[in-house]
């Protein structure tokens, strides 16, 4: 493999700084002691972090987002496991159509999903309901879990299952003792990926949340359109930290490169 020249390395340095710049600035400004968005030079303060935790709207929204992400990721995983096995283990008419349906939220703009959910929720009187918000999120994040479950299920050695079956294990036992342990890395990776995607989702949620169910990204979006102060920077820095923690977990459990670049 040939080496990169100095020009290529300089280009790489520029791209890396471009990618990191907005995240770094957010984390630095969050520590400002001033009342405006200034870069702290001599003094660092945690006052804006305290302000976030003292802000009831932000705290409520954080818990909303957390419960929403945990419940929708869990439901998405529970429905994606059997669906993924059905798609990979059976050959049936309509398999491709079913697969396309399950992956379609990836190519439908979230704005359109938001508009569609709002119409349906207003017709059945479900606007502002947390349960329906969870289900809307499940639809959006199921494709992420499904892809990892499908990849894990294709990669799993089928002969182990056949051996268990031929030794008289029931289908339930085979699933619990053989199949599930084999696809578990895909399942946990899928759950975390679904969790972070639900936690970050803003475009669809902005249409279907009510004041009581506003999620953290929606709250931050609303806040940023009205006023810009270091409170927003501190909240953003906390989001970056939270995402980084999930990323580390994802890396340990599944491999971040595999999730970001693809199966192989």
């Amino acid at each position, binding site marked *: 493999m040939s080496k990169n020249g100095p020009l290529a390395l300089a280009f790489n340095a520029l791209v890396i700084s471009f990618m990191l710049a907005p995240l770094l600035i957010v984390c630095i400004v969050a520590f400002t002691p001033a009342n405006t968005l200034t870069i702290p030079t001599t003094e660092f303060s945690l006052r804006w972090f305290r302000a976030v935790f003292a802000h009831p709207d932000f705290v409520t929204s954080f818990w909303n987002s957390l419960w929403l992400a945990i419940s929708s990721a869990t439901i998405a995983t529970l429905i994606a496991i059997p669906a993924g096995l059905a798609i990979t283990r059976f050959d049936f008419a309509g398999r491709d159509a079913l697969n396309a349906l399950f992956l379609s939220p990836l190519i439908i703009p979230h704005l359109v999903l938001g508009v569609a959910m709002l119409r349906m929720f207003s017709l059945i009187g479900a606007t502002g309901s947390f349960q329906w918000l969870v289900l809307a999120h499940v639809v959006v994040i199921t494709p992420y879990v499904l892809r990892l479950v499908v990849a894990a299920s294709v990669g799993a050695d089928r002969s182990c299952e056949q051996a268990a079956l031929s030794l008289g294990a029931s289908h339930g036992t085979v699933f619990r003792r053989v199949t599930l342990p084999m696809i578990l890395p895909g399942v946990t990776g899928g759950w975390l990926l679904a969790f972070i995607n639900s936690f970050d989702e803003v475009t669809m949620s902005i249409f279907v949340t009510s004041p009581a169910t506003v999620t953290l990204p929606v709250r931050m979006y609303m806040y940023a359109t009205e006023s810009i102060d270091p409170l927003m920077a501190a909240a*953003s820095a906390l989001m970056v930290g939270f995402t980084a923690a999930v990323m580390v977990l994802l890396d340990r459990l599944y491999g971040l490169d595999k999730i970001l670049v693809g199966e192989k």
Partner: protein
Amino acid sequence: MKLGRHSTPWALSAPAWLLFACLLLVPLGLTAVLSFNVFDHSTGVKNEFTLAHYLAVLSDEYYYGIFWRTFWISGVTTLICLAIGAPEAYVLSRMGNPWRSIFLLVVLAPLLVSVVVRAFGWSMLLGPQGLVNLALQAVGLGPVRILYTEWAVVIALVHVMLPFMVIPVWTSLQKLDAAVENAALSLSASQFTTLRRIVLPQVLPGILSGSLIVFGLSASAFAIPGLLGGRRLKMVATVVYDEYLHELNWPLGAALALILLVANLLVMLSYNRVLEGRYKKSLG
């Protein structure tokens, strides 16, 4: 292949397809119906059929302007992502570990950070007192108004979309056989000729699919133009939001959203066709 009863796979996937039918197909259908409903500013949505909303969108210069702006902003974003993302993927692929994995992660990881946070970061960098303006002033070029212009939207969109360009190009670079490149070099082709005649043709599918996905996602972006375009500078997604939450003209908003959906599906399905033609993905 385990052969169960014909109904087993349908039963296994029943929770998923029931949910998708009720919360994806039905809402989209209802929205399509809504876009053909009559809207009256005093009484709201009426159950009568009309094409007025589509005709309004197709005949009003205001909407032409919005669609045109969305189109060129997405186009410019795609070109910049191409000019940065493809060479970056190539440079990364020629690095040795551990730098290769570290830099790849730095380029791709922002994907998982909320787009609101990234937009806010750019609004700080590009603002009148932001770092970019301070740097421009230091070299005697400022102050320049960037925030709340099209260029702020383009810069932030490039930041959000770059990973979607790097991923497919990186994937096709991984499939490259280094021996072919070395053969060309040993047959005394120049570095540039090797790049143009050997590497480029093989990563072209990756570049093409990256471009289509970046274009599609940029055209439907919401939070970036919402936070960096200000109140005045609208793109299709922010106009739909206004129609829904400020004008309360849902049928018109639905018509706009569906036009966006159809345009997006056309772009994305051609992306799928490119992808399928190149690497046949088996589902086992």
